[in-house]
């Protein structure tokens, strides 16, 4: 399993991040910029622990933009047009493969309504990637993107990667947000951009795959700049039975 720790974001992410780290490395968790931990492979009680890395991802955005549908399409390849507002928070787990590595994605689906903001932002901590979603048929949801971006900066850590997704692109006749405006905003915020449709299964898988790529790239950059990881000195103590990473980059 991989746990990433950002020294810069330690202040905001400490509570949750340390709880994750302390299970494997009680005292050394905040010593490195991006710190990959590998847990032993094999089945452990209560779940499949047989993976190389675990990424925690969040889907955020205004209510009814299609976050839950997007997740259902990706995780279960299912879609229903019935709208059920998410209560608080929920998640699904999906394993993907990249360069022969098993990456387990813990994908958290957040409620968009303001009344749940306290509970949802608590889950931002420790997230490595965000899908920030708006609805191309809803101007208000697009206008709120800037606020959601601020929420990420406030409650997450600096290295978290973000993809902006303009959902419901199957509803062209009701479109009020142009592709260009979406792309422009993404550029201004420094995010990647996709227009998507959970209903027609457009760019759903691609959005997740791009987010995983971005996280892997970020990890590689951090490992390149952190000699401690490549020399294996303190990191070696944090690995379990698997050998420390000898190469730079996460290989994913």
């Amino acid at each position, binding site marked *: 399993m991989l746990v990433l720790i950002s020294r810069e974001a330690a202040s905001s992410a400490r509570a949750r991040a340390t709880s994750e780290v302390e299970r494997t490395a009680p005292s050394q968790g905040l010593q490195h910029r991006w710190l990959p931990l590998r847990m032993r492979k094999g089945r452990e009680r*209560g779940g499949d622990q047989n993976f190389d890395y675990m990424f925690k991802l969040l889907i955020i955005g205004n209510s009814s933009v299609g976050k839950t549908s997007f997740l259902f399409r990706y995780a279960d390849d299912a879609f229903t047009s019935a709208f059920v*507002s998410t*209560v*608080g*928070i*929920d998640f699904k787990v999906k394993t993907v493969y990249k360069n022969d590595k098993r990456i387990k994605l813990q994908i958290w689906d957040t409620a968009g309504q303001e*009344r749940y903001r306290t509970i949802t932002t608590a889950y931002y901590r420790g997230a490595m990637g965000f899908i920030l979603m708006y609805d191309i048929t809803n101007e208000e949801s697009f206008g709120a993107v800037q606020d959601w971006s601020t929420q990420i900066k406030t409650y997450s850590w600096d290295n978290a990667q973000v993809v902006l997704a303009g959902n419901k692109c199957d509803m062209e006749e009701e479109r009020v947000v142009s592709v260009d405006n979406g792309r422009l905003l993404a550029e201004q915020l420094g995010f990647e951009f996709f227009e998507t449709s959970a209903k027609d299964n457009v760019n759903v898988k691609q959005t997740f795959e791009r987010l995983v790529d971005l996280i892997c790239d970020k990890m590689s950059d951090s490992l390149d700049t952190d000699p401690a990881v490549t020399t294996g000195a303190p990191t070696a103590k944090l690995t379990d039975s698997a050998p420390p990473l000898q190469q730079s980059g996460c290989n994913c």
Partner: protein
Amino acid sequence: MGQTISKPTNPFQNSNFSLKHSSPSRPFNEQNMAPRPSIFSTLRRPLITKTNDFIPLFNDCISAAASRTQEYLLFKDPEDKLHASPEVLTQVFLMTYISQSVSLNMTDRFNCTAMTPEQRILLGADWVWAMLEKPTKNPRIQIAVQVLHLPDREDAEENSIPQEACSESIQIAKNESSNKTTYERMVDFCTSIGKDCYALFLFLGKKNDKGNIYGVLSNNFEAAIGKCNKIDRPFIENFFRGSRYLHTPPGMMQAIVTKKEGDSLTLMVKFS
């Protein structure tokens, strides 16, 4: 509106713990000195507005769900082989409630969202009732419900679940929530939303009354945390010891919708 029971003392009266009950008893002197309302004053109560017209329907749904659940609560197998599990009892109650609410066409005003297995662990709730605002359909008032079963029934279920049945996502949810009990998680969840979110602990059978369904509802359980009281089963059960009055389900709902915004409300309810 409710049913009176003969338990004259309130264990919270002499403690520092101050959950506001729906029918607080005032000191004797104050009761005598204050101008007494006319006995006809109740006739001038504000009429139930149209937005609250779901309350009789809610009562119908609860009656159906409680009656059906009671059949299984009270079931005794002559050979002592069949026992309804806690999970089954919860599902019987919830499925009956949902069927009834759909057939009465009330879900656009008052809906019920069953939690996923992961949410049940993360948020501590089995389902959430929500009174919806008309145009937006956003929740105006919510009641998060956690079902509690008779201890012997819960013990039997725990022993019968093989570890392998515990899925990966369930294990992750448990790890996320490992430092808190289910009671605390639900109180935390409601507190994070605000005073318009109530926690309802629904007892499918009590120790001294195994065939009936009771509940403790409050939007102020977090006060116990402030007073360093632990929120656990004995703490919740303790409310019944001090209560003189049990609300009916429509009485509970009426108390909720007529409460002033931001006020605390705690009450005990008999659902069957």
